């Protein structure tokens, strides 16, 4: 039972990170029908920025809570700025282009950002300080779930609730939903579509940055390549839940995280990613538009 609980919570931790990242994919996809391949790199840049800020502040002798807050804020701002810039450079000129062009451009951007970090920083793994605050736990739970796992799950849950509320109740959220439904129609009724797209990228990138800080603190190391596999997993989660659907991304992330955790715990840890992709294929065979995706009818 203890082992089960342990796996459950490690799956939940993983799943919430996947969900945070998947939200960025799904929001962009919902609006632009574009797989933003560079999203994983934004997450990596967020983690790197936080690491840099935290190290500088540590040398300068700040307190740990100030380090956490400042590092997180700077990382979020910078990731959002990177997301915004990436959209302006690589995707905006391609709005009217055939579907494959922005995808290739996105792959190019992903390669570019990876190598940018590798050249400007390092290609080695860097140790990552645990920035998360220690949360006091009841003794009976401490062997099942660690403090950093708990803060990951809590932070992601809060962020997801905030995002849902934002999309549901604010004017910008409404504009985002309208744009996702029909870009031209939204333009006709006076939605500034360009601004909505930028906002989407900014929100997605900010979430990715937080995900990056959380997971890097949890695993304790980082290099320029972490964005790639995390990005693919998160995209898998988004597709699993039905791409374009925000609750779908959250559900997809959690399902993927839990499935991976149980599969590695009970079957074999070598094939972690194999399970993830096999699950994806299985779900798509039986439900081609994902768990919560709408099957939109194709028109000629």
């Amino acid at each position: 039972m203890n082992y089960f609980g342990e796996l459950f919570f490690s799956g939940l931790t993983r799943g919430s990170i996947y969900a945070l990242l998947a939200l960025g994919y799904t929001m962009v996809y919902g609006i632009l029908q574009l797989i933003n391949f560079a999203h994983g790199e934004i997450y990596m840049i967020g983690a790197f920025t936080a690491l840099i800020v935290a190290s500088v502040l540590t040398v300068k002798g700040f307190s740990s809570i100030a380090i956490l807050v400042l590092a997180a804020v700077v990382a979020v701002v910078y990731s959002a700025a990177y997301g915004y810039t990436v959209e302006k450079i690589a995707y905006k000129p391609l709005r009217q282009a055939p579907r494959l062009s922005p995808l290739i451009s996105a792959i190019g951007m992903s390669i570019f950002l990876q190598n940018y970090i590798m050249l400007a920083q390092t290609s080695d793994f860097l140790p990552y300080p645990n920035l998360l605050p220690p949360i006091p736990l009841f003794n009976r739970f401490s062997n099942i779930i660690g403090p950093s796992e708990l803060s990951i799950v809590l932070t992601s849950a809060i962020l997801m609730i905030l995002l849902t509320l934002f999309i549901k109740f604010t004017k910008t959220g409404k504009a985002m939903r309208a744009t996702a439904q029909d870009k031209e129609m939204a333009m006709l009724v006076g939605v500034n579509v360009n601004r909505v797209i930028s906002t989407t990228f900014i929100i997605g990138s900010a979430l990715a940055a937080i995900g990056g800080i959380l997971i890097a603190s949890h695993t304790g190391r980082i290099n320029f390549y972490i964005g790639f596999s995390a990005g693919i997993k998160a995209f898998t989660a988004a597709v699993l839940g039905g791409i374009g659907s925000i609750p779908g991304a959250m559900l997809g992330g959690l399902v993927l995280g839990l499935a991976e955790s149980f599969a590695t715990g009970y079957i074999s840890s070598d094939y972690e990613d194999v399970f993830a992709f096999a699950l994806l294929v299985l779900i798509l065979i039986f439900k081609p538009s994902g768990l919560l995706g709408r099957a939109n009818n194709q028109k000629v």
Partner: protein
Amino acid sequence: MKITAELKKSFYIALWFILLTFPIMVIRVNTIEQIVIWRWVNLLYVGIGSFVLSFLWQLFLKKKSRSVQTIGTKPSPLRRLLYEPKFNRPALVVIAIFTIIFPFIFSHYQVNIMTTALIYVMLGLGLNIEVGLAGLLDLGYVAFYAVGAYSYALLNYHFGLGFWTLLPVGAILAAFFGILIGLPVLRLRGDYLAIVTLGFAEIIRLILENWNTFSFGPSGISNIPRPGLFGIKLNSEQSAIYMYYLLVIFCLLAIFVVHRLKNSRIGRAWNALREDELACQAAGIDKTRTKLTAFALGATWAGMAGVLFAAKTTFINPASFTFLESAMILSIVVLGGMGSIIGVVIAALAIILLPEYLRVFSDYRMILFGAVLITMMIFRPQGIIADMRKKYESHKTSGSKIKGIDQNG
């Protein structure tokens, strides 16, 4: 007046990039010894670089939007060189002679690089069937390449079978995998297809990496024999030349087959499928069969390229079959111009050869590759040479004949 406005804009963009790249470019931390290095000079480079680039960027974007208005007046010189017999026949002869004498005028090293480039030509042509002709976005094409390479290496290791026996086996196995991947994804469209194919490729790579008893794991398989030539013993230099000619022959075969396929009944069915799935079905095309043939035929070439690759390098491991490879092959197809055979050949040669000869910039190779992909998509999304679909022109005579029948009847 206008120039100053643009310069001002470039200036602001440069400022933005200075701010944006500040922590990553300037600060470098050593987390173990708690040392922070400040590299302020990098800011200067970023500022100047982004100023110049953004100015050029705006210039070209404007030029592009202007050229859209005047499109289609005159064929470009490149297109004339390629399609007008007056120019393309002599060019073809020159290329043919160059291809034949290439191994004798260049060094062993150059021949090896060229052989690698030719493998990518084959891969590009194969993926062109799936992506360019049938419009099936496959992000896991490298899986078939891996299947080909490993089927040669493993069957040779276990059963001692030779290259020529295993070449068709590798091709057939890859085609089989193509159908295997094709079957479950038949119902999926566009991006779902992309991610599932990517997933399949990752599954295959991970199995090769982890199933040690089957595939020898990450250390790979070495001592794969080179292809034989009627039992003649070749030294390593001769066999490199032999490999080169083999690949030239296979590339010609691939070009011929893809060209024939393109204008065949199945090729036109693929085009119809790419343009509109529903309309294509309404026109009576069997969607299942058409998609599966695209997967199988595309995979066949990757399988053969895999066998040739294993035979050329004599060593393979799973690290050669990562997603980056798939991305590289896909960019060959897209940069070349989707569906265009000549474009794919040129793009494959450019993408593989240029980085080899730009070794000076070896650190900056991949970052340049990324930048080239983005700029190509923005400024020339149709690729180096856009595909021209074969047109069936209606002739005056046949038109008048029909009229005549009309009048009579």
